[in-house]
């Protein structure tokens, strides 16, 4: 099972994803903004990061820039989990190395667990760079 870092500012949702992913047997750590996530990756070394985009203190895009996913952590999978579907922010996250984007309000827990499995097993199609 994988090590998953959940970065989500909404406490209820963060807690829900922790419960869902722990029940699937994953090791899970939660962070509530990008800054907390940067601190967490130092000690936790996740296999996959479930990342919200719009958060206080430090948003998901700034986290991706500072974490330098493409150059420093190419082995880590980043799954964008947002309600800002079809936004320039999502396109930018792909440019910064995110693997997939899923929409919170469309995704039931069993589907979230399945998408995470697919992403970890490289079953997902690679996203486009709409540059």
């Amino acid at each position: 099972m994988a090590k998953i870092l959940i970065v989500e500012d909404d406490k209820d949702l963060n807690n829900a994803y922790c419960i869902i992913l722990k029940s699937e047997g994953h090791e899970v750590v939660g962070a509530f903004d990008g800054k907390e996530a940067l601190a967490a990756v130092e000690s936790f070394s996740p296999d996959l990061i479930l990342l919200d985009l719009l958060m206080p203190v430090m948003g998901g895009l700034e986290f991706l820039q500072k974490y330098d996913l493409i150059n420093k952590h190419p082995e880590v999978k980043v799954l964008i989990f947002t309600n800002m579907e079809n936004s320039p922010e999502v396109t930018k996250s792909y440019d910064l190395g995110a693997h997939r984007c899923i929409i919170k309000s469309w995704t039931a827990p069993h589907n979230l667990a399945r998408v995470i499995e697919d992403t970890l097993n490289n079953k997902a199609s690679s996203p486009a760079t709409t540059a």
Partner: protein
Amino acid sequence: MSDAQSGPDNTNQLIVEKQAEMEALFTSIGDGAITTDEFGKITRINPKARQILGFSEKEMIGGWFPNKIVAVNDQDKIINMIDRPITKAFLTGKTISEKCIYRTKKGKLVPVNLSVSPILVDSKPLGAIQVFRDITLEEEVDRMKSEFISLASHQLRTPLSSIKTYSHMLIEGYMGDVNKDQQKSLRTIIGATNRMNELISTLLNITRMESGTIRVSLKTINAKTLVDEVIEELNLLANERSIEINNLSGKYQLDVIRTDPLLLKEILINLMTNGIKYTPENGKISLTVKQTTEHITFCVADSGWGIPEDVQNQIFSKFFRAKNIVKRETTGTGLGLYLVKGLVDALEGRIWFKSKPKHGTKFYVEIPNGKNQH
């Protein structure tokens, strides 16, 4: 009238007075104004135009308009002379009104709304006159409005996501067993949150469209990749209704296109979501893409209930919902296709459909390949 009043001296004086009046009128125009001769050389530039562009009168007079006044696109690339409004006005003999970005003497980019007309005397072109207005402030207000709409959309959906996620967790047994009646109630809650989510999306998009805050931002994109992204986003939604999506975008050879990827995605997501909603469980939806030298055409086909013939001419109207759909599916707003039509218009495309009740519907969206657009 006496001889003294109608003599040559008086005529000259009248001409001088008229010229002074014309000059005062030109100078007093509150927007930027520039005139050229028939060869495009600048003959006059009023104080407001000089203030916007940062050049002195001496620097501009006698210069060739397209050289002196640099127009650029969103990426600060210089627009070809043939695509400049003044060239179009000279070539067509008509007034051209457009939004444009000018580069000032100091290199600052200033968005302007302009109108340029040929000056015709006895149908012979003597030059052109352009009036333009700095719209930096309006653009900033539009940007803030768009940002607010986007933020409001996110903030409204966050609590709904919590309601939906926890309801699903209860149904799926993450918190222990729930009986059938409890499951039914939870499904009602989930259905209501789905409708609320849809409503938020549609209303915010309609607000953007009707307030004119939808901006077309052209980018060169791979159509196949964009379709793959749309389908990946929608697969989860289709799964919930046991509907299969066939991605046929790889069937034909596709070249890159130049369009607004976010607006195009919005169009396809709306059509596909409609297909998912109005197709019975275990049905199928497909997306096919074909390209010609001029256009690219997307076809979204569903195996749904179809659109009755007598209402087919109304389906792009605001709040319209077909009776056969209202009987089966009470959750729609009648705004989805109205929105899609508006977005297709924004991309200078066209939309049409073929539908047969009980046999499904095929929606076609054709947009320009856009290779010559900036």
